């Protein structure tokens, strides 16, 4: 049974303002990376395709633009960094030429000028001895340093939006703290919008302004960061927050969301979370897809019984 369409993203909407950090939270297979790839226009297609929707960047629908125009926007206005810097960087070119490529291609700079700018950027992302290391290859750097090189590439042309797809997942906590600090600082200085894609509830709590929680290709909850941690309005968010090991829970069983994330080829009918949900009522949840209900100022929840969840008395 290999035929069929995996519905990775099913009606996702979000907006990002300048200088704002939006965290897109979800487990593997929830569609968070595919959404980002669609925004940047690097979705593998075929096999991937976007049946409908639009991505508006300052009013222009990116999905309708011709590829040549799209290329100009990508890198100059919308840039992206990836989880695994080693496979995202080209192993046979020096890091200096890869960072400099941005200036050569988009700005038409000479090789020598581009190299100078590459060194400046490496300094900016605090790579020690940048001048000496500009001609090194990616494999000669440590994981944290490679991620810095990717960040240098992505901010080279001063983009308005930076999409960071699990930028610190492959790194150790002490290095993760360095990279997140660097990203926050660059964002402040440049008033960049940042879309942070992650599954780490700790990182999100640290940096996000608002959060979109994804499940089975949909946004199931959207809210400002303080509200969502204090009082989630969707059973899935509630379950995720409850399953974090906490100090006062030591020796007790952890709360676990039962079951597994759905197969994207066979997303459950009605609410996709219903087979795992403690609030389920079979008559409603298995048949009606919940829209993103308006549940408060700048808050949405895709649960028929969001009032009950928000009330919190079942927790």
């Amino acid at each position, binding site marked *: 049974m290999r035929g069929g369409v995996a519905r990775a993203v099913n009606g996702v909407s979000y907006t990002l303002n300048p200088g704002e950090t939006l965290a897109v939270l979800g487990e*593997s297979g929830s569609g968070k990376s595919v959404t980002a790839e669609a925004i940047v226009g690097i979705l593998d297609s075929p096999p991937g395709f976007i049946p409908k929707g639009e991505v508006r960047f300052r009013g222009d629908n990116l999905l309708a633009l011709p590829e040549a125009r799209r290329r100009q926007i990508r890198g100059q206005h919308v840039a992206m960094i990836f989880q695994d810097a080693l496979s995202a960087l080209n192993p046979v070119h020096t890091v200096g030429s890869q960072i400099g490529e941005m200036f050569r291609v988009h700005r038409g700079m000479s090789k020598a000028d581009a190299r100078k700018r590459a060194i400046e950027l490496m300094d900016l992302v605090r790579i020690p001895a940048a001048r000496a290391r500009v001609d090194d290859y990616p494999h000669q750097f440590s994981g944290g340093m490679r991620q810095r090189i990717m960040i240098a590439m992505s901010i080279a042309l001063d983009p308005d939006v930076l999409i960071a797809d699990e930028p610190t997942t492959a790194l*150790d906590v002490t290095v993760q703290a360095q990279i997140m600090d660097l990203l926050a600082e660059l964002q402040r200085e440049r008033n960049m919008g940042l879309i942070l894609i992650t599954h780490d509830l700790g990182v999100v709590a640290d940096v996000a302004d608002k959060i979109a929680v994804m499940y089975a290709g949909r946004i199931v909850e959207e809210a400002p960061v303080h509200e969502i941690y204090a009082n989630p309005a969707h059973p899935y968010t509630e379950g995720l927050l409850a399953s974090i090991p906490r100090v006062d829970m030591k020796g007790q069983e952890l709360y676990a969301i039962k079951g597994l994330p759905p197969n994207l080829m066979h997303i459950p009918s009605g609410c996709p979370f219903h087979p795992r949900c403690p609030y389920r009522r079979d008559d409603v949840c298995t048949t009606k897809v919940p829209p993103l209900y308006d549940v408060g100022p700048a808050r949405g929840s895709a649960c028929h019984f969001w009032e009950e969840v928000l009330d919190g008395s079942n927790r």
Partner: protein
Amino acid sequence: MAPTAEAVLEIRDLVKHFPLTQGIVFKKQVGAVKAVDGVSFDLYRGETLGVVGESGCGKSTLAKLLMVLERPTAGSVHYKGQDIYKLRGKDFKAMRRNVQIILQDPYTSLNPRMTVADIVGEPFDIHPEVAPKGDRRRKVQELLEVVGLNPEHINRYPHQFSGGQRQRIGIARGLALRPEVIICDEPVSALDVSVQAQVINLLEGLQNEFNLSYIFIAHDLSVVRHIADRVAVMYLGSLVEIGTDQQIYETPTHPYTQALLSAVPVPNPVGRGERERILLSGDVPSPADPPSGCRFRTRCFKAADKCAREVPLLEVRPGSPHPSACHFAEIKPVVDTVDA
């Protein structure tokens, strides 16, 4: 889960160096990667000892040494009074039966061409005394039930299961021979958050049921805090601090432990930006050429001249009620006890 004082494993001055060679025909040793360099601790019956540290600190080499998948350069590990590296033949096999491992990646640690019955039943081929041939299928089904899998799925292949279910298969295999010690090498780090909790609960339940001792190797500090009775912190091949979970998490005395704990993002936005963070500069040095004296001194905020000259021993110090390998050890709480 109260650990008794009976030590199941006694690890003393364990050292593993991997030689670095130069030349193709005439190989000449030019140095060594000091992956594990003088590690000592005890594991008590029924307890969980968490081992934390960053990648490259030697956690996994330590696991391989304890499993005798690698032989040490020096040092000893005593299991019930016998040095496991000196055991041969029947005694060695008996020891192996009692020390099992659960690996990190449930995608690469299960043979894709073997069914669940073969994977979980394979330990019985090597140790037929545990389950006679005719009885094996039933035993495997029992094990599947214990770890929360459907016993009817015994003829399926690993690719037919999800990540969390595969990890359960790995756990069933680890349990098959009724071991006393299980070494868990990052058992939940490849899993999604919602599935992680299920597997942690399973491991804790099994420990109570079978009185198992765990060495729980992980880089996720909050998971270790939840499951461990004692915690050992590793940096560049040696232990820098060891103590009960409370001692390590609430009153850490080694600067590395303090920095590590302060770097963990707290899953609660209240008070963010006000938390004190100890940011370490730079990366972990190469284990092929570790710094002289204290290995942490190149990144340490307390480093002084003494640190370059004298190797600090892992011992109880005036500023540290539990063993800490820092000349200037002192208690510094870095994590709120009432977080989250």
